[in-house]
């Protein structure tokens, strides 16, 4: 557990330097593009969240965008209420159009910033815990988990679209006020906002890293390999799986809140099939075994998309598909797998050398005229 931890910390440090220094430096620490970069970071964060459940515990959550979207809606509800303060009843405009009489009860608490921030994490966690209890206590695994999470996400998306009076329906929640964070009015085109997003991303990764590298993370890796066997050692497998699933959901919720801030609206497409599949692709390209690698995958693919979609326009989606197939075929562990293989190789050669040198020394000490041929 320990050597892996050190290497992870180095990777984390390099990633932090990349996000905090290199990326802003690429756009001279200012300007319109910082907003796009903040968006890439938010998407990288949800890819990292998926890597936590998929790569570590083997739970392929095809509905990762559900918790992401819920986070986004929660943030948007708060900002919408702030923007609607002067309207009759303090109600969002779309409620007025559809003759809602008073602000529904489930909108009320979102007046509070603290409630909103807490809910953005805890509601996704709660959803994941509930779903986790049903799925994992029932020993549902593999492709069935993927189907259930995907269907639940699509069901929620349909519900949001159909309940237009309360949710803004297909249009989502638009016309948001800027976030006022304890007296700081957040401008999403400023460097300070970029650093807020980067800080959240790094914090989320740190939480994930702590989990993955603790013994709980070890148990999760064991569960990924053979859940049956883990049970016979006395671990409550369902509870561990729920832990990974819920932590992942919490991180995705934060990513969703940031995403709504960046784009200044929330839309049912945030919990759609295409973004959910895209998240899987990002994590797979970067490497699902490492949250940092998956985050880089999310950032990298989206950056490339930003650059290339101008050039290639429609074909971009096709190219993304081709990239994914290529990764699955040639790099099943993603780019991280390439790095890890190289690392293992170097490490093996190093230990071999050390062992050989040690052996030789011992032999020489024992018999001055040592027969080198025996050294193993």
């Amino acid at each position: 557990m320990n050597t892996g931890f050190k290497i992870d910390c180095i990777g984390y440090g390099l990633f932090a330097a990349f996000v905090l220094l290199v990326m802003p430096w690429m756009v001279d620490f200012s300007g319109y593009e910082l907003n796009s970069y903040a968006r890439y970071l938010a998407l990288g964060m949800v890819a990292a969240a998926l890597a936590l459940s998929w790569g570590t515990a083997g739970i392929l959550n095809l509905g990762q965008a559900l918790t992401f979207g819920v986070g986004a809606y929660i943030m948007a509800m708060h900002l919408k209420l702030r923007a609607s303060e002067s309207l009759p009843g303090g109600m969002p405009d779309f409620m007025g159009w559809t003759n809602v009489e008073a602000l529904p009860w489930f909108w009320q608490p979102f007046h509070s910033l603290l409630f909103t921030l807490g809910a953005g994490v805890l509601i996704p966690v709660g959803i994941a815990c509930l779903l986790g209890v049903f799925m994992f206590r029932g020993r549902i695994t593999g492709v069935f988990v993927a189907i259930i999470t995907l269907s639940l996400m699509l069901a929620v998306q349909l519900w949001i679209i159909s309940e237009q009076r309360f949710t803004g329906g297909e249009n989502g929640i638009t016309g948001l006020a800027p976030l006022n964070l304890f007296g700081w009015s957040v401008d999403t085109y400023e460097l300070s906002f970029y650093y807020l997003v980067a800080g959240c991303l790094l914090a989320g990764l740190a939480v994930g890293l702590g989990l993955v590298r603790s013994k709980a993370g070890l148990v999760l890796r064991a569960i990924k390999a053979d859940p049956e066997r883990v049970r016979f050692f006395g671990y409550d497998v369902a509870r561990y799986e729920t832990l990974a699933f819920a932590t992942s959901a919490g991180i995705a919720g934060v990513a969703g809140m940031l995403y709504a801030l960046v784009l200044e609206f929330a839309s049912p497409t945030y919990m759609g099939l295409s973004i959910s599949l895209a998240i899987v692709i990002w994590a797979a390209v970067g490497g699902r075994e490492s949250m940092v690698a998956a985050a880089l995958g999310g950032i990298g693919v989206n950056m490339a998309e930003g650059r290339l979609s101008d050039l290639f326009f429609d074909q971009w989606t096709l190219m993304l598909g081709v990239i994914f197939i290529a990764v699955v075929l040639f790099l099943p562990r993603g780019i991280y797998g390439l790095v890890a293989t190289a690392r293992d190789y170097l490490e093996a050669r190093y230990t071999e050398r050390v062992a050989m040198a040690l052996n030789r020394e011992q032999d020489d000490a024992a018999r001055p005229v040592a027969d080198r041929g025996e050294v193993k």
Partner: protein
Amino acid sequence: MAALTLDALTVKFGGLVAVDHLDLQVRDGELRCLLGPNGAGKSTTLDLICGKTQPTSGRILLGNQDITNLPEFKRARAGVGRKFQTPTVFKDLTVIENLEVGRSSEPGILTTLRVFRSPVRGRMKEVLGLVGLENEIRTRAENLSHGQMQWLEIAMLLMQDCRVILMDEPTAGMTVQETSQTASLLRELRGDHTMIVVEHDMTFVREIAETVTVMDQGALLSEGSIEAVEADPAVREAYLADTGDEAHA
């Protein structure tokens, strides 16, 4: 006192009665060998005890505690450990990581979230020494030899430190030398742990056994000292009928 009691334990798979009203009592600290021809229901009996399979009827007592209806992980916490017939270790994990998973005296999330190291000292070091894997700490389990994998799984059970250890053919695939090492290891464990060992290798059984139990077609056939059982005409008949001369090996 009996560490483990099976009381009219029965399981049916469709029409097949794999274990048929089996009664068994194993003393605290005893090493019991479980024999029987192929398909006699030995593995299934162990499955029933550790919770992999649910019995159709009957009871399982661990000490005085009825564990018949507990889920697997609670049985493990109550003190039942299992070694499977084919070595079942975590292939992607290193030897020491496997042992860390095995060390499960505190299996709760709140504890495991706070553990970040597996220092090679104390019991960990002792167990590594016992099974001769001291120099393979960082080796991935998939790169071990078959015999070493068997030993690793035994080592994981030693880390688990359970009261009752169920071993299904622990020497399968081992060399003669490894087998005799395993025999001496089991003799050492006797007394501290209660063990049920399923084996086909009669030389090995002679080396370790105090009392042997023979099953055939799911039911108890004979029980006693190894000489008494070997002399039992019913046992000879069962083996001759199924596998030829295995009992004489």
